């Protein structure tokens, strides 16, 4: 495992290291491997991946397309089984979707038949919370993501960025211990990305929400994270762990700083080889198919 400057290695995962280094792991991913049988061959999507997410930490997992990031997201969220290894939340092994993990998806996931407020109130309604209480709580989270005044609107009346904020508010509303996000800004334009990223950053800093972000966007990872895990191209392994030592609390001004540029350059050096390998394999596949 290599680690570029500026960086610091994570402690090894053998035994309970968290007490030794003085922090508590909210989430532990231990030796997770996932293979897919595609008929003719077995593809290893994720290979022996291990890492911890500390309580209150914002951790990003970054890697080229096809490195198994989304597979990892689904495994941690409990939506994908049939893997070896273990995922632990609060010290306990989990086998499926878990109440302590809230997921925000890459695709548009708001319910088009529900208003903004009813979308955000959905998990509370599902948990049996009374109408008045859940609407009150939902209104708080709608306001938190900056959509106050849009409570009665329907998703079809909102922009993509606003809809994604509804999805984030819906996930935050049921108070998960860990917020798990899979490229939540992938479908948005660059400017909206930065602004929405800043919004997420402000919320995370205010709530100290433990957050795991899956992304392929280097700037986004640096802007938001305390640490960034770099994954290799297929099979997905942890290549490097990069500490982002930009000061907190951060604002969107951070993206214009020299330190931000240094981190982006460092991460790109790590990613370049993997991204090139992914591109070369894709081109080989296309030319092979054409031939």
């Amino acid at each position, binding site marked *: 495992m290599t680690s570029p400057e500026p960086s610091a290695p994570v402690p090894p995962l053998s035994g309970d290291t968290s007490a030794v280094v003085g922090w508590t792991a909210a989430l532990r991913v231990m030796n997770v491997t996932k293979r897919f049988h595609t008929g003719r061959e077995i593809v290893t999507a994720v290979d022996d991946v291990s890492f911890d997410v500390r309580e209150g930490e914002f951790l990003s997992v970054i890697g080229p397309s096809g490195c198994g990031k989304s597979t990892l997201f689904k495994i941690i*969220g*409990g*939506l994908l089984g049939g893997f070896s290894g273990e995922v632990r939340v609060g010290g306990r092994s989990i086998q*499926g*979707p*878990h*109440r302590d*993990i*809230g*997921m925000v*998806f890459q*695709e*548009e*996931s708001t*319910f*088009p*038949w*529900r208003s903004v407020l*009813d979308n955000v109130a*959905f*998990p509370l309604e*599902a948990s049996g919370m009374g109408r008045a209480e859940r609407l009150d709580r939902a209104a708080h989270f709608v306001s938190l993501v*900056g*959509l*106050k*005044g*849009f409570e009665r*609107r*329907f998703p*079809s*009346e*909102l*922009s*993509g*960025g*606003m809809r994604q*904020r509804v999805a984030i508010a*819906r996930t935050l509303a*049921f108070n998960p211990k860990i917020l798990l996000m899979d490229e939540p800004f992938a479908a*948005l334009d660059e400017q*909206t990305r930065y*602004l*929405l990223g800043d*919004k997420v950053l402000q919320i995370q800093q205010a709530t100290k929400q433990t957050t795991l972000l899956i992304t392929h966007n280097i700037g986004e990872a640096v802007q938001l994270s305390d640490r960034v895990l770099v994954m290799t191209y297929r099979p997905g392994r942890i290549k490097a762990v990069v500490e982002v030592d930009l000061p907190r609390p951060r604002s969107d001004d951070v993206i214009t700083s020299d330190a931000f540029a240094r981190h982006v350059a460092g991460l790109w050096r790590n990613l370049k080889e993997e991204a090139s390998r992914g591109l070369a394999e894709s081109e080989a596949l296309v030319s092979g198919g054409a031939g």
Partner: protein
Amino acid sequence: MSDAATLSGRVRSRRPRFSPAPLLGVATVLGLLAALEALIRTGLVSPFVVPPPSTVLLAGIDLLWHGNGLEALLATAFELLSAAVLVGLIGLSVGTLLYRVTALRRTYEGWVAALAATPLVLVYPFFLVMFGRSAATIVAVGVVAGLPPMVLRTIEGFAGVRPVLVDVGRALNLRPVRVFWSIEFPAALPVIFSGFRLGLGFALINIVGMEFLINYGGLGQLINEHAELYDLPETYACIALVVVVSAVFVAASEHLERRLRG
């Protein structure tokens, strides 16, 4: 501009509070009827081929107030309501089952599609033997005719639900039955209801056809009687009442869809 709008884009569009479409539709029908009236009054179209709409209107009012038009209309409406309930319940159940069980779907979906293109009214002798010359026979033929589009569109509706919406429910650790009723069902409803409305149309055609064929019950029987006597205004008035029944049921189904979607 609000913080939200500033932050990530403008609000696309407000939902229209008033749509002129229904009024335009009514105006078009009235305009066409007025044109037809003018063509007949000026002698360009013979009143023995098509009676003037004003005469049809008066005949319709007379049928409803003094004749057995209201009774016939209610009989047809009741038969259609019975068929609609059965088409809805059976069609939703069968469609859901075929969607859920892939083996069943692969085996039977093609057959259901073939049935949708078959004039099922021709199986009426079977139902006559089963239920006799009664409303039950008429309803049964209506149900058989209305089911195929309802079943097919139910399958299509569920198949079209975006997987990420189901993942939202799964991520919340909801039980499958809760995911079905809270997410998959409302997400599939627009397509299911388009199938239901198609089924309603098929059912009404077959119900009125059966009433005509076995000379029993509602508006179909009345059309039969007046057509036999060449009472053209009354015949057309009964046909117009069939259109009214259809329009009322379609409007009611749209209202039900909105209620179910919440």
